């Protein structure tokens, strides 16, 4: 009997906490984990900034496998969380299944488009930010060979690579770009050992600047680049501080802004398709005390010119996703 009472009071307590969580927003992170020093961490920072500024609280989950996606979305929606923000393209298929079942809940997905009346889709113009760091890479390179290391081989990452190659070739038409992908499964986001070996392989082919767009794998790339004395370029979050003076710059993808804006909007989150690009501050490159010595005045001028050109439309950076092809690099 006492056991029964315990169960009853425990479930009552659960029900109470569930009630208290009502209408809090939720942030769902991808497999890389909340503190990947990159994409997910940027999303977390945005949510954290919202929480600090408004005093609100949000619920969150870091999933451990693909199988948990639909379950996670349903649980947060059932618990009354609104809006629900998902960081990562991999959420798309699960969200596509679930969104219609919760018409009153607002969802936001980052990096992918889900067409539903209650879903706000945010995509970033990664090719523009990558173009800028490509310009910087080509100008910093002494060998004329630069490298790119992607995580999982998907169109999103190819878009990074394509924009980067365009930037490199714009700054130095004779440059060679070596592009490698870490793998074709989600494990490719968390294999720093392979990232290191890829970096060494590219160095042996002459690369002296490598750009890592590879989540947790990038930690190994940046480490090896610093150990071997070549420059690297970080991605998504500002990674310049990881190896001060050895990271040329970081391609910033302001996932934090996208999450912050969504949480600010709350219930009133507008559904639809949104592009965060250079013009509205969605992408860019990082310049801080850790890399200011590496970015020369000449480089800075070229980067400013390229930014202005992209914003005004004078420079058109090809987006891989539009036709699944890259005019300057054959994958």
């Amino acid at each position: 009997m006492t056991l029964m009472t315990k169960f009853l009071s425990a479930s009552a307590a659960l029900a109470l906490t569930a009630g208290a969580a009502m209408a809090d927003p939720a942030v769902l992170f991808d497999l890389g984990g909340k503190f990947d020093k990159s994409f997910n961490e940027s999303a977390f920072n945005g949510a954290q900034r919202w929480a600090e500024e408004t005093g609100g609280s949000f619920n969150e989950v870091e999933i451990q496998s693909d199988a948990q996606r639909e379950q996670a979305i349903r649980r947060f929606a059932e618990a009354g969380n609104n809006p629900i923000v998902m960081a990562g393209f991999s959420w798309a298929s699960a969200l596509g299944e679930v969104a219609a079942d919760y018409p009153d809940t607002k969802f936001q997905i980052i990096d992918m488009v889900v067409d539903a009346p209650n879903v706000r889709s945010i995509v970033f113009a990664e090719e523009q930010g990558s173009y800028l760091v490509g310009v910087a890479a080509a100008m910093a390179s002494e060998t004329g060979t630069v490298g790119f290391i992607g995580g999982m081989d998907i169109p999103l990452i190819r878009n990074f690579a394509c924009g980067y190659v365009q930037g490199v070739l714009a700054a130095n038409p004779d440059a060679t770009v070596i592009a490698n992908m870490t793998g074709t499964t989600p494990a490719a986001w968390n294999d720093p050992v392979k990232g290191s070996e890829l970096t060494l392989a590219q160095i042996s082919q002459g690369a002296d600047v490598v750009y890592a767009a590879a989540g947790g794998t990038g930690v190994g790339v940046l480490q090896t680049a610093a150990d071997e004395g070549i420059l690297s370029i970080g991605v998504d979050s500002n990674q310049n501080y990881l190896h001060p003076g050895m990271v040329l710059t970081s391609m910033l993808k302001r996932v934090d802004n996208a999450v912050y804006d969504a949480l600010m909007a709350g219930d009133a989150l507008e559904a639809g398709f949104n592009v965060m690009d250079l013009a509205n501050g969605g992408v860019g490159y990082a310049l801080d005390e850790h890399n200011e010595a590496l970015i020369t005045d000449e480089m800075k001028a070229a980067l400013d010119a390229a930014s202005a050109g992209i914003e005004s439309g004078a420079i058109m950076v090809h987006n891989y996703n539009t036709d699944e092809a890259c005019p300057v690099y054959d994958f």
Partner: protein
Amino acid sequence: MDLLFNIQVWDSTIRLATPLLLACLAGLFSERSGIFDIGLEGKMLAAAFMSAAVAYTSGSVWVGLLAGIGASLALSLLHGLASITFRGNQLISGVAINFLAAGLTVVVAQSWFAQGGRTPQLAGAARFEQIELPFASAVADVPFIGPIYADLISGHTILVYFALLCVPATWWLLYRTRFGLRLRAVGENPAAVDTAGVSVIGLRFSAVMICGVLCGIAGAYLATGLQAGFTKDMTAGRGYIALAALIFAKWRPWYALSATILFGYLQAIALRPDLIESSFGFEIQGQLLDALPFIMTVVILAGFVGKAIPPRAGGEPYVKER
């Protein structure tokens, strides 16, 4: 054939093969004594985490290495307790260890360092340094032999050389000592060993402990030798590839060396699509190269090329009397 004569590819092969080799020899000891161990992955992961965490806090990579071995030993003991003392199912115990390590490392790392399941970056004495062998820079200019000595043989961390020494040591221990004879016997016919008055339990526990030590070194090599810190799931399936290598090597130490070098080489050339293309004139998908170790293991298991016969008493808990 650029692929065969590229120093960088072979250099990469050695680094990638080392954790496989250590884990493969670890599995060899355990399985030769009749204890199947699919928890190699979990033990490496736990060791990788503990070695990085302790190396960071203590500032000494050697203390980290000991801590990594300790973590791996603890999981080994758990495996021994479940499968030797309590005669549980060895496969289930191994799977449990893998899950336990995958979850615990991230949770503990988060509560210690609050960096999301990773340790801070290691620097200086908290990492294994690359060792320059004597005269490496002097002979580097000698054609052919110079680069091989200076770039390929020299310039690895001490754990690489230790792993290579483990191969003859394992062979000697298994085939030239009394302990080795008993260890092999207990994996084939534990009742006979017991009749001879030797403790089956004791032998199996010592094999499982050796397995723990080697897995610990493999994990520490990943986190403090190859990398500068632990990141979650950083073993990335290497424990399973080591198991495949063990079957491929038919549970023999020298074959284990060649199997892990082969698998390491496959991983290394997967990183150089440019060389593959220039050697063969066509592209080979990286996925195929990644899958080849497992495909070859299945071919061996199916008996197409030689036959892989596991230790006869493998997987069976020993019951003294019914």
